[in-house]
């Protein structure tokens, strides 16, 4: 019994003798790969978003435009050569995740969203001079149903509901006496229930005592299409849509 316990004690020691030489280079290699070869040559005090925030993409795919942030100093002038790190929830990847600002003080990264539909809160961090500066932005990933809704909205709804005009596609928004609500207008749309939205899509504006300029689509698009449209509206609304009335936790 006594001998056995000594054997037990000696085992870890011999194991360490074997493992230590293996562990040291492995450890060194690991630490070398976690610190990238980026050396900040300057530091700023503030981060501002240049472009690429508030995009809507499909789950699991790269966003169309890169996320571009700018590092500024106290005077508000751009700082080239400052380190910017991008962070996001699990599933989001950045290419690259750490980058030095270019000559115009901008750091650019390509964002790939996760596989779950919803909003992704992303942040960019620059070490700064005394304390780190943080910038937060939100990107939205659409799942299959919401993307179908986006396609249908583009075909049937956006010509009136989206005030944005382009030469290829002139918006009808300004021509209407009763202004339609853009689908991002969460302040209004979040107060409407799914049943209300369904009935205004199916039966037109008069169904909710609103303008007849909104025609009925009940004989034109399917129930699946209506659900997809509502799912899309909910996904892009700003402020975010919170379904009311469901209590999940008992305690």
């Amino acid at each position, binding site marked *: 019994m006594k*001998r056995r316990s000594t054997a037990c004690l000696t085992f870890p020691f011999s194991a360490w003798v074997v493992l230590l030489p293996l562990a040291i280079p492995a450890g060194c290699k690991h630490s070398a790969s976690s610190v990238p070869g980026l050396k900040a040559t300057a530091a700023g005090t503030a981060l501002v978003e240049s472009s690429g925030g508030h995009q809507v993409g*499909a*789950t*699991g*795919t*790269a966003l*169309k435009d890169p996320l571009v942030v700018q590092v500024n100093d106290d005077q508000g002038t751009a700082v080239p050569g400052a380190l910017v790190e991008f962070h996001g929830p699990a599933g989001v990847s950045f290419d690259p995740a750490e980058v030095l600002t270019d000559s115009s003080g901008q750091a650019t990264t390509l964002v*790939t969203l996760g*596989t*779950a*539909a*919803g909003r992704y809160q992303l942040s960019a961090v620059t070490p700064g001079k005394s304390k780190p500066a943080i910038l937060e932005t939100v990107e939205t990933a659409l*799942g*299959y*149903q919401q*993307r*179908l809704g986006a*396609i*249908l909205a583009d*075909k*049937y709804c956006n*010509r*009136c509901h989206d005030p944005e005009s382009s*030469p*290829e*596609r*002139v918006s*009808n928004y*300004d*021509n*209407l006496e009763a202004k339609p609500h853009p689908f991002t207008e969460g302040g209004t749309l979040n107060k409407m229930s799914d049943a209300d939205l369904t009935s205004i899509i199916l039966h037109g504006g008069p169904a909710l005592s609103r*303008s*007849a*300029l*909104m*025609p*009925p*689509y*009940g*004989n*034109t698009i399917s129930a*699946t299409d209506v*659900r*997809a449209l509502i*799912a899309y509206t909910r996904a892009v609304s700003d402020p975010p849509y919170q379904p009311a009335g*469901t*209590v*999940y*936790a*008992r*305690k």
Partner: protein
Amino acid sequence: MQSMRKILSSAWRALFGDPVRAFGVVSLGLLLALAIAPAKEHFSQWHSYQRHYLALIRDRGDAISLRRRFRPGIHQIWLPELGVVDRCTTCHLALNESSLADISQQPFRKHPAIPHSLDGFGCVICHGGQGAATTVAEAHHSERAGEDPILPARYIESGCGQCHQNALPGTPQLNLGRTMLTRYGCVHCHAITRPDGTKVEATDHPPSLVHIADKTTREWIYSWLKDPQAYAASTTMPNYKLSDADASDISAYLVSTSTPHAGDTAAAGVQPAANADPSAGPSLYGESFCASCHAVQNAAGNLVGGDVGPELTRIGNKAKPEWLAAWLQNPRVYDGTTPMPHYRFTPQQITTLVTFLQAKSDSDYGSGVHLDAASPQHIAHGRKLIVELGCTACHEINGVQKPENFAPELSTIGSKPLAQIVFLPGMEHSLPSYIVAKIRQPRAFGSSVKMPQFTLTASQTDALTTALLALTARGRSMPDNLRVAAIPETNYQPAGHAGKLITELACFSCHRINGRGGDMAPDLTWEGSSVQRQWLIDFLHNPNTLRPSLIRRMPRFNLSDNDNKELTDYILAVYQSPAIDADLAPAVPNPPAAVEHGRQLFYSKYACESCHIADTKNDKGYIGPTLTQVGSRLTPAWIYAWLKDPQALRPGTTEPNQNLSDDDAHALTAFLMSLRSSGGRGAKQ
């Protein structure tokens, strides 16, 4: 050694020295052995996930019903006719639990809404991976022979494409990828057969090179071969990464074998007009709506215009003026199948356009190219290169046959076993990453690879990969009732003199008729039921737009009165819908009361002015066609049938079906028929 033996013998005595003790020890051993199997299961990965799931639902409001639906043990979706044995639901327990929609932690996330039931199709059909595996590593990441790691989410639409050969509204990426397979000419070299046996046909129009020397110079061919995108950023011609000598030899072969074409000198008398009005060219280019099909780079570097025809940013560097003049006179002489219409320009207009287009040139382009006269050896080497690179898979070239099965067939590329793939060092061992690498950098796979370099964006590469991954062996072995066939383009060809005119004017490049043609302009299958004779004659003479918001419009073809009449008669006689009943529509002229009632319906009940303009003073609707003269344009029977059900006449049209009563439809028809060009009775008084 001595002491070791002593310890062993004392241990033996301690355990088995006494028969009762020996029996006890053996029983204990047996008991432990029997416990191994249950213990293994208890400590298995899926079991721990099931315990986590129970802990997750314990505190939720609907815990009792969730708990009732929970079934312990291994779950399996078994679909013999699809070859599906999926145990994914063993760990992914909440796929169908809509009350767990707020859980984002895997493996307990709810499956997003899709059109199919999960139990009816299983998981691996779309997601890949090993369905029968019961550990995460094996199910998701295995790369062993015959197995595949799980498909990254960005290619998920490839799953839909295994059964759905048609274009689905919810799969834009797959649809784009499939369009690219035909538009970028992939299928000229790589044969692709759909599961139903039909071949995927190319939709691009690679020009024939048999008369190339009439059209352009050897220097231009050389510069083009070296880098097609430097000439036209939007071209689908890939870069073959040719050396200077190889590009020179190919250009020498093409020019030396080019035969002169009789039609190309027909307009040789056209001389660029020196004293022409400088604004005449741009305005004729604009009036002819060349930009509907051809793009030109603007000052900001953006392409403006359509992509049916080639980009014209540097056309002056390429086309010889006499060829251009002959082409504009009648493109079908040089190329009988071109999508370009025969415009019937006057000689004066041709001169103006040639001058205008010749000025679209870049003095830097190809300025440094000085080719030596080609020797027979160089020409022979050029021919060898053309054969090796498979140029004739796309282009017709004198003296070289079109190759058969030039490149590997891709009909089941989506099921290519990983064991058959030679991966590059450092590459992820999965089929999608292999396909992406092949598309992005084909030459990285060895110097003998002939596949050229395409210039594609990241999203185009992903779309193409998605379309290729959809070409699976499983898609071919699916039961026939699950397969949704592609809608093939018909080979409809109108007859007679009108048919010849429709071909010459290339109507099918923009309009669809009886299932053939483009989608840039309205479907004309029922045009004869729709429009009035005089309007059609006037429109063909001088097409005025119906939709002011559109950029792409119908050009003017300078038809003779006789041709115009022939075409009008043919359209009115042949393109008639059997669903339009002329008797159901109200007679014209309509009683003023019906017109007034229709006007009230138009403006109040149905608020048609949100999309249409009936009165230019007050209405602003900008989506549908302008209706100010609709009474002179459309037939009452068509208006009535359209109001009752627009989608029945033109599937997919955005005007909603308002489910009008017969009376309302009659009144609205009466009002719309009162909106005429002459007299102005219709407008609001």
